[in-house]
């Protein structure tokens, strides 16, 4: 088994080839475009490109507030975003890559409409690195800097709609060699790479900011699985794909690799003149035809046990806009009656051992569909499973397109070569993310945290929050305690997680999506008040308790009695009263003192005064 990963992560700030922001919303206008497959560098049309052409779709682009003529493909790219380039260099350094002498960008032809230009601009920054894992080093083949594609809004009736908001966002792609041993190892490797990604200051941190592609092979050709959205899905997706390929291997074995001959498509629309199936009724009313075809020897292979041949065929149909491919393993279903099924089987000439597929589509579509289905069956029987697949949100995979070849790359001539000198690399050394071990020892040495605390901050993804608060607020141990103990404890008590607004009320307003916190002396937050009022730890914790557990609004906290610490004078007065009563010692003074007042106080001061005032025996 061979597994490789491609991890993509977005950077925030400006886009890669223009100064538009990475953040934006819809502007209301849109425009329609088509894409034409053109020659690759060596004069051949790429396989994947040709396939898209079959689909012959048109594209509607929704203009966003963060787009300009570059995203509309109405202007050549501007010079590369230098911060993004530096980030790519830094991450290449962290992953032990060789940095290329020049950044040179290529046009990677992509004509599914996700790029207005019809290509994605991409360039290699680093090559040949490695990352350490428990099962040995996993080699990094390349680190590329590229522009993200449009965000897909919808796809129907041969028209895909995209938003320009995501187009051009800087994207760093980290590709590993197929050194990964199994699905668990894949997850570990992805996490290890993810650590470096997430420690970059300008990592975008949105829902879809990290995307993983998984390259997988178990001897039947390389499958590239696109868009595994969550780390935890890597394992599920791989497990699914292993199961799928095993099942196809068995099916192929049954036919000794020889493809069963797909029967002719026979128009059976007439059967359904009085059908009770509303789906078929609607389709026929809209001018579509219902046709069926026999698949010899495929009974109980379409959808039975682990076999899913029906889905393999339906994926192909779906890609050319045919949503309705049904098959005999599913029947009875879709409101079809027994006599209708009999007529279908009769028309197709079904024998016991055969399967029948039923397709609802426009008449001309059948001519496009048929060769694709035959090709698909042939591929499966020959166990040539190499292709590009998409990861589904449910942890499965589905057919997307043939693998793209090198023919789809040619030079982006609108962007001059950018030299990356040794000096340049030296100058951005501070940006290079540290390994987990380095960070841990830094937290222990510089901030005097315990190893356990350091580890927890890293594992709970709160490291950057911690660092940015400490930078402003100081008191690392207090901050660590609030993040790791106080807040989780109160969340548990009230049985509700902090909302982003509440988080901002306590820690300071997040400048941009949870990454860095604005200065606490200018923005109202509990930490901000604590800093201004020089609260001690217990006052601060009491404030958080009032806010989280007693629903006292932030605006009232500052004037709250409990949070106005007792002055030394007032403490002295309380202790004076206390010492006159019996059984008082250093052991119980704090507990007794707390009973006497609702207000905050500094326990150290209480002890100090108690020592002064305690009976001298």
């Amino acid at each position, binding site marked *: 088994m061979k597994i490789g990963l491609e991890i993509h992560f977005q950077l925030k700030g400006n886009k890669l080839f223009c100064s538009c922001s990475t953040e934006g919303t819809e502007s209301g206008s849109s425009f329609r475009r088509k894409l*034409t*497959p*053109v020659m690759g560098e*060596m004069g051949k049309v790429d396989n994947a490109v040709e396939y898209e052409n079959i689909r012959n779709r048109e594209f509607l682009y929704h203009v966003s507030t963060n787009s300009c003529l570059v995203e509309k493909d109405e202007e050549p790219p501007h010079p590369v975003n230098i911060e993004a380039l530096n980030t790519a260099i830094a991450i290449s350094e962290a992953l032990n890559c060789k940095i290329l002498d020049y950044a040179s960008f290529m046009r990677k032809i992509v004509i599914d409409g996700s790029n207005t230009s019809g290509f994605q601009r991409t360039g290699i920054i680093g090559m040949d690195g490695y990352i350490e894992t428990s099962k040995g080093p996993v080699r990094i083949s390349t680190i590329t800097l590229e522009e993200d594609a449009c965000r897909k809004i919808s796809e129907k009736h041969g028209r895909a709609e995209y938003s320009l908001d995501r187009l051009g966002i800087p994207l760093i792609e980290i590709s590993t060699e197929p050194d990964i041993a199994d699905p668990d190892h894949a997850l570990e490797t992805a996490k290890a790479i993810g650590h470096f990604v997430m420690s970059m200051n300008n990592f975008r941190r949105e829902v879809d900011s990290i995307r993983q592609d998984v390259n997988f092979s178990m001897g039947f050709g390389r499958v590239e699985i696109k868009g595994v959205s969550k780390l935890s899905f890597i394992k599920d997706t791989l497990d699914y794909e292993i199961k799928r390929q095993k099942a196809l291997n068995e099916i192929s074995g049954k036919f000794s690799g020889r493809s069963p001959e797909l029967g002719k498509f026979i128009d059976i629309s007439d059967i359904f003149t009085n059908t009770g199936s509303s789906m078929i009724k609607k389709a026929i009313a809209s001018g579509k035809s219902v046709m069926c075809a026999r698949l010899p020897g495929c009974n109980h292979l379409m959808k039975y046990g682990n076999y899913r041949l029906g889905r393999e065929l339906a994926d192909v149909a779906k890609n050319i806009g045919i949503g309705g491919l049904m098959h005999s393993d599913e029947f009875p279903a879709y409101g079809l009656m027994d006599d209708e099924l009999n007529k279908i089987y009769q028309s197709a000439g079904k024998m016991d051992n055969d399967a029948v597929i039923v397709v609802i589509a426009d008449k001309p579509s059948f001519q496009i569909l048929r060769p694709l289905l035959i090709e698909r069956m042939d591929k499966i029987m020959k166990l040539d499973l190499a292709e590009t697949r998409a990861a589904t949100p449910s942890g499965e995979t589905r057919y997307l397109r043939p693998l793209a070849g090198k023919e789809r790359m040619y030079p982006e001539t609108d962007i001059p070569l950018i030299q990356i000198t040794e000096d340049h690399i030296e100058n951005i050394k501070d940006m290079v993310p540290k390994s987990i071990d380095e960070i841990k020892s830094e937290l222990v040495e510089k901030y005097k945290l315990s190893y356990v605390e350091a580890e927890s901050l890293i594992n709970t993804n709160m490291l950057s929050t911690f660092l940015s608060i400490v930078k402003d607020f100081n008191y690392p141990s207090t901050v660590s305690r609030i993040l790791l103990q106080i807040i989780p404890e109160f969340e548990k008590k009230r049985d509700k997680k902090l909302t982003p607004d509440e988080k901002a009320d306590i820690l300071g307003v997040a400048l941009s999506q949870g990454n860095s916190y604005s200065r606490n002396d200018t923005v109202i937050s509990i930490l901000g008040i604590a800093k201004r009022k020089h609260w001690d730890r217990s006052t601060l914790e009491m404030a958080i308790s009032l806010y989280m557990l007693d629903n006292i609004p932030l605006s009232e906290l500052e004037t709250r009695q409990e949070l106005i610490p007792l002055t030394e004078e007032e403490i002295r007065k309380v202790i004076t009263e206390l010492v006159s009563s019996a059984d008082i010692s250093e052991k119980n003074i704090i507990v007794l003192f707390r009973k006497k007042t609702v207000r905050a106080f500094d326990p150290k001061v209480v002890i100090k005064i108690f020592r002064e005032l305690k009976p001298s025996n």
Partner: protein
Amino acid sequence: MLIGQKVDFSYKGTEYTGTFISSSGETITVKLGSGYNITLNSDSFKVLREYDDGNIEDNQRTATASECGNNGTCILTTGGTIGSSVDYKTGAVKPVKDISYLYNFVNNISQFKLYHENIENMLSENVDSGKWVTFARKARDAMKKGNSVIIFHGTDTMQYSASALSFMFEEQTKPIIFTGSQRSSDRPSSDAFLNIEGSIHFASMEMGEVGISMHTDTADDSVSLYRGTRARKMHTSSRNAFISIGEHAMARYSNGTISEETYMKKPSENIVLKDKLDDSVGLIYFYPGMKEEDFYNLAYNKKAVIIMGTGLGHVSSGVLNIIKKLEKETSFFMTSQCIYGNVNMNVYSTGRDLLQAGVIPLDNMLAETALVKAMYILGNYPDSLDKLMRANLRGEIEDILK
């Protein structure tokens, strides 16, 4: 190493295999198996092995030396972005010799009889009056065989070439359509394909004028046909860079059908080509503080000078004095740098002084059109320069046609 040759090489201690693409002395570019080109310093690059497998791919497409046949549409290619692709030696965009591969990618044109003749291979900034004569003669030859004419041309100076042919053809039997593209045809998003589709349809109209056929909009929805003498490139890079100044497009093409939008001259029975151009004409853009000697140097020894004046058609009093000095040898014509609107030299005293000095106002004629028109008149009717410059010969003055 030869382009396309497979090589093993080492870089910073690691060995790779790739395909040699180019070297510039200081740098070497190779294509990796993944399709990526990487560019390295020559001194960090060591060739370990050059493969001699005789399998070097020939990416030189052979040019088809065809000539136009009869009664179809003749596409004359002159270069420009529409006929450009990437030169892998230098990485620059360069004209290609053969555009026949475009035909596979253009929709709705199967019913047309298309011919292709390559007449030039140049970037449009290098076009001059001599080239206009060549283009015109080629167009005449094609029309003589009963063909409509489409000229693929760089967009930068397309309006000049279209104007030149508009004037040189006093009568024409078929449409002459210029077309080009703002995105080169090596890109999937190129506007070339739709522009060509539109121009082929426009070329089939019953029409006897010269037009420019380019995207109406940023979308791939329609193509507009602009009168050669009124068209202007108004954007450096966008698809809809061309518009007709002060009038509607002549026609619009969308989804296989043409809608005619404004007056177009019917085709003539005969072809009358006046293929003499006298390029002793200057075009001077006046600006505040323009030095008198600079104006003098630009205007000196010209038979005609087109001035792009400010606002309604003004220049400084200093420049006016130079005009007065040169006025005996040189005819001066006034257009406006406002692009839109008429010049009117009766409103302010400067204008009246210019009129008195013999400067001739050209109403709303575009300066670039006026430049080419003066060349045509000087070449063919030198004695009637002042009179003909004011006349509306090919729709270059917008109002009579409405």
